[in-house]
């Protein structure tokens, strides 16, 4: 049944404001700002920031009061070794932040009314995704930045302000930024495949932290390098500062048996992270594009 009806045009309309079709870049800026406004006021951002602050402050206080940072501070050959040790937990903070900010970034559109507000805007879904992705990366880096501030403060306290390895820290931060993008790519992919925001956050933490840690241990027990693991690649964040880096350590376990401990080289870490971004970000964009608001 097809009916075409044209209503008569009546006078007395409204005065229209000038509008233009926004470019994808403008759309990205609008969505990034929108998402940042949201994230910066969420309890999860403020809570995670507070948590990182408290843990980092306690760690530094303990180190200052005991003089111990994994080993006695005076036994460290170089200030960057201290910074490297302090940054050992950087991948964990990044995974937590990525799960908190990325785990529900897309599923929220299909589980709450947010999608009926955002998905009807004249903005491509891929642009919506990249805007949210950028905002999530920025707030994750804000959390990580706080942690780095404590690492720098500790290095300056123990070795003097002039000894802070700024170049190494900048490189580490660069690796951390790529790790952030890789973890967020996985988190966004999980989020685009789930409906419940809480499920997305939980699966992201389980997959990135628990899952990879278990698989890594099993692989190392078999004497193999866990090159597939994003968690493994995350070690490059602090190993870039390590002056005594070993890619492979062999620990003898007795009669003709050894246990292998692998550490990703910086280049290897960067390659694994880049591969995760290259695979999971387009995949999440595809899944998000295909997803329907059936609820």
């Amino acid at each position: 049944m097809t009916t075409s009806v044209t209503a008569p045009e009546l006078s007395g309309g409204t005065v229209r404001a000038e509008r233009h079709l926004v470019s994808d870049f403008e759309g990205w800026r609008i969505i990034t700002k929108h998402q940042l406004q949201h994230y910066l006021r969420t309890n999860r951002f403020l809570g995670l920031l507070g948590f990182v602050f408290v843990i980092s402050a306690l760690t530094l206080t303990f180190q200052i009061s005991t003089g111990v940072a994994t080993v006695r501070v005076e036994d460290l050959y170089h200030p960057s070794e201290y910074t490297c040790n302090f940054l050992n937990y950087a991948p964990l903070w990044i995974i937590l932040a990525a799960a908190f900010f990325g785990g529900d970034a897309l599923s929220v559109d299909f589980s709450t009314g947010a999608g009926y507000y955002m998905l009807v805007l004249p903005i491509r879904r891929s642009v919506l995704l990249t805007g949210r992705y950028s905002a999530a990366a920025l707030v994750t880096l804000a959390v990580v930045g706080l942690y780095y501030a404590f690492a720098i403060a500790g290095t300056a306290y123990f070795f003097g302000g002039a000894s802070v390895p700024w170049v190494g820290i900048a490189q580490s931060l660069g690796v951390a930024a790529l790790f952030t993008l890789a973890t967020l790519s996985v988190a966004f992919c999980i989020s685009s495949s789930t409906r419940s925001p809480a499920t997305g956050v939980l699966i992201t933490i389980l997959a990135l932290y628990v899952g990879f840690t278990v698989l890594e241990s099993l692989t190392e027990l078999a004497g193999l390098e866990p090159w597939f693991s994003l968690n493994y690649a995350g070690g490059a964040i602090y190993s870039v500062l390590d002056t005594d880096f070993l890619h492979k350590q062999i620990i003898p376990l007795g009669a003709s048996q050894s246990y292998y401990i692998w550490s990703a080289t910086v280049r290897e870490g960067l390659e694994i992270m880049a591969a995760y971004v290259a695979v999971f970000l387009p995949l999440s964009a595809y899944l998000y594009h295909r997803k329907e608001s059936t609820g």
Partner: protein
Amino acid sequence: MGFFEVSHLTKWYREGAPVLDDVSFQYDGAGAIGYLGPNGAGKTTTLKLLVGLLRPSRGRALVNGLDPISDRKAALWDVGSVIETPEPYPTLNVFEALETVGRSRGLERDDVDREVDRCDEWLHLPPLGMRIGWLSKGQRQRVALASALIGDPSVLLLDEPTSGLDPAERVIVRGVLNRLKRDHLILMSSHQMLEVTEVCDRVAFLHQGKVLLQTRVDEIPGRIRSRQVDVEFAEPVAADKVAALSPVPSEIVRISERHWRIPFDGSNESRARLLRLCQELGPVVQFTGSSLLLEDAYLELIEEPTEAA
């Protein structure tokens, strides 16, 4: 002026009967179309397909001549919608939530301010600095309506637009829609027959995924038999006397001492007989079935879909 078209549109979610079954219609120009049907008829599904929230299983849905799936940005640029319950982030304030919509529709910053002021004037928005999470349901609905209106898009797709609003708010929204329909194309699903009667020029009835009837509201009296009349007497009339007017006295509704709603079989003979009997009870001021005409049409079409189609 706006334009939208659905052609042989079919949608099913899983195996089984389609939610929408080979629906076709198109409207252009200006005016308001009421999209009516019982729950599960496929009204919201149609609206979702028109804004690309769902993909057609078969057929196509176009807005302003563009496919909202393959050409989302251009297709939705001139479309405002309120579908289901749109919820901006609860952490944002009213202005921030509307600013995002306005900017994405291509408004400059100053124009966003003006547009938000216009929406505020029309819809009496809550304080612009108040966070969405603190708003009542009715206030949120008004913000959602403002988000559809900001930037003044030519096509408005509204799914139960007055849902959650109190009577005073409904009057405001109906006034806004009546003003907008002069130069906008509005497709509005609703269960509020009075609202549809007051706002819409045309209606499309949907039942079990199929369009049963598309017509102008003023053509309905010629197509549908009204099966209730509102009778207003000049003087109060006793209930037992009114009860004798209908074969089903239990369905007679007493609106006031002088004002009664009386069911009948819908035929012209019965209607004429009923008027005569009423006049025997006392002077009749008003004798009309118009206030419930859409409801009658709705019920008649649902009861006898094949015959009515």
